[in-house]
């Protein structure tokens, strides 16, 4: 293991974001930079001190803090004509909020299976299937997060 640090003359870092060091102009320095390689496995440090700031936290190294959810969706409606599905957050009346959709897709006769990534836990999703035939009403299918399920699935058939 070899660490060679570049030492600049005077760098005072205060505040956030690398501090408030005045660096609005190009800085000409003659640093010597190496590429140190340090491989260690971080180990959470147990603490019993009060948590007053973020730096007091201890987080599992593997926990990436993501709130995403993967939803497996399967649609097999055995359609004879083209249709179109909007998978969206549900309005209070059960209809699809077309301004909050996760997936929009034309539908045919074939089975469709997709893995969709949701950025956050939704309240309720509705798959609204619209048909191109005039004066037809859409079909609606709803899904809610199942906390005990290992895999989140939305099967429409």
């Amino acid at each position, binding site marked *: 293991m070899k*660490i060679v640090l*570049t*030492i600049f003359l005077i*760098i005072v*870092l205060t*505040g*956030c*974001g*690398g*501090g*408030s*060091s005045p*660096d609005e102009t*190009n*800085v*000409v*320095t003659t*640093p010597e*930079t190496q*590429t*140190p*390689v*340090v491989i*260690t*496995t*971080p*180990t959470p*440090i147990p603490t019993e001190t009060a948590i007053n700031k*973020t*730096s007091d936290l*201890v987080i*599992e*190294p593997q*926990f*990436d*803090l993501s*709130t*995403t959810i993967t939803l497996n969706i399967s649609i097999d409606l055995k359609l004879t004509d*083209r249709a*179109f599905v909007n998978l*969206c*957050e549900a309005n209070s009346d059960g209809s699809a*909020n*077309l301004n*909050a*959709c*996760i*997936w*929009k*897709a*034309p539908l045919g006769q074939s089975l469709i299976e*997709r*893995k*969709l990534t*949701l*950025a*956050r836990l939704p309240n309720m999703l509705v798959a609204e299937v*619209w048909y*191109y035939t*005039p004066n037809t009403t859409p079909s609606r299918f709803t899904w809610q997060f199942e906390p005990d399920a290992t895999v989140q699935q939305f099967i429409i058939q």
Partner: protein
Amino acid sequence: MLGFDIGLKQGKAMNLPYYTLLTLFSSVSLAQEPFDICPSQAFLVQKHDNSNAAIMFGVNLATGSNKVLSDNMNTSERINGVGFNLFDRFIYGWGYEENTMIKIGKDFKAQKLEVFGLPDTNFFVGDVSTTENALYLYRRGGSFGLYRIPLDQTTYNAKRVADGNTLNLSIFDLAFHPDNGKAYSVDSNGMLYSIDVSNGNAAELGNIGESGTFGAVYFDVTGQFYISRNQDGSIFRIDVAQMSPSAEFFAYGPSSSSNDGARCATAPVIDVDDLSVDFGDAPESYGSSIEKNGARHEIGELYLGSGITGEPQPAKEDDDDGVFFVTGFETGFETKIIVNASRPGYLHAWIDWDSDGVFDTKDKAVSARELTAGNNEVFVNVPIDALPVGTPSQQTWIRLRLSDKAELGPKGGVNNGEVEDYPITITNSGIESSFYPSSGYTTIAFEDSWPEQGDYDFNDVVVQYRVRKDMKDNQVVQYAIEGQLTAVGASYHNGFAIRFEGIEHGAVQSQRIALRINGEIQAINPLESAAISEEATLIVFNDTKSHFQLLSGCRFFRTEPNCTSQPAVTFSVSLPLITGVADDFAPQGALDPFIFAVNGFSHGAYVQPSLARQWEVHLKNRAPTPAFATGFGLADDASSPSDGLFFQTSQGLPFALEVGATWRHPQEKVDLIKAYPAFVEFATQKGSPSWFQSPVIEHVAQ
């Protein structure tokens, strides 16, 4: 009864009985009052349907709507040649009942004023000058001509400026420019004239392309000239300052005859507090503001959706709510649109198929479709060639207008109905799209002091965006990203980029990539060189600090209290692929966003300015790009690449955070858990993933 001026006694004989004179004289004591303000509405005077008595209308030039201001102007005959006097805020003109000048105040009662020096005739062309306190009247013919009547005298003495041979025009009204002192008019053949009223010399400025009887003409404060055609009520706008002025259809006004118009020429067409007009909100190139003759409607009982509100100019946050795009716009197929109308009316729609920024004739997608009250199905055929070859999808705009007009264009004013503009995405047939997140943005917040632990206000760089992923047959064919640089609370110069892990540089249609920042296409292709990154990487902001000006008194961009009023820096970019990538192997969600140090700028003790691009910060446990060469294990960094652990401290603290919502970042120097206490349980115990929904309001950006 008619008003009567003292000067009348010495003037031209008027055939009024003596008792009438007495009555009128007494009414003069009820002194006329001027208009309170210089009004934006135009005045249109014409005769009653069943008599010759004058009736006064107020006309909103922006929409063509009109209403009766007075149907009893105290005269049994017509009034014509009217003009609004800026000097005393009265309207002056010509009264046919006694063949003399009249004066009208805010009660719209005509008061007769005796004038000396005029021929025994009537005048139907006239206006009050905007630069001198005088009424000008004109009648064609060698015995007549152009007359000037000073209005700042106790007696009114007319003087002929030019005889009818010098000024020989077939015109029906004239109006004074707000600034240059000249009068303007358009004859029945469409020839536009400017008239030097000091000598009666008229100059032909060109044919404006419309003909008819333009019986009411007006100016606004910007020097735009408005002419109303008697036959059909059409109002046209002319920029008289152009080398070749032409008439642009502006609004549907009232058809009329025996009319004349007056207007305060120093008033705007729409007052800043006018909430009676609805505008579209598409980009200005489509015509949205009044300056661009944007689509606009006088609000009333006919509208789309559940309601309508007016605004004096296009609003970014509009109340569009009556149109539902329930199927995709796939080339070669029909799309179904649900349109909700409050009442029966005609629907017109335009789609900018070729995304050239204007609605032209070929863009008319729906023409005079009769809607009933409630929901209506509307079908539109998407042209098979609506997209350039090789383009999976493209965003464009649709404009829908509901009104009682069976004939309607994409711009101009209407006195009823509503306009709604929407961005839409046209796709090739069979394209499906996923959206991350479903609404709003996901937020990526960075600390930029890596490998040293930061102050954890997570606002050094804050970028928010939404990813649309287009697929065909389960193969990803394009990513499209739109979002904003929300905050920069850093002193260091940081760039922002997005890596598409698993997609090779050569798999991208690089020539089709277009990065827009604040709506402007950037000259530099954002796809990073393959020499730096073999995987596709888009450099969205080469230097986040080069895209904003700090507000006075602010050290950072939108992180300090009272420093968040300036708009975020918006961006959009797409990554079309040459061949599809199987979705199972394609990057998902927020992709791989990261910041990098900007070459040439200092970035702390661990960054060499000339090689600053080698420094990166990614989300926790996301590996850096091949360009990264700073190394791990420095200072507080405890990354362990062999274990798949990146960009974290020995306590597992990250240097970047994704929040799957349009997050309000902590204020400058405010610790994350002070702003979001629920983060503690989430981070340490994998608690509620909705931690970001419970901010301490006073500690987050407002």
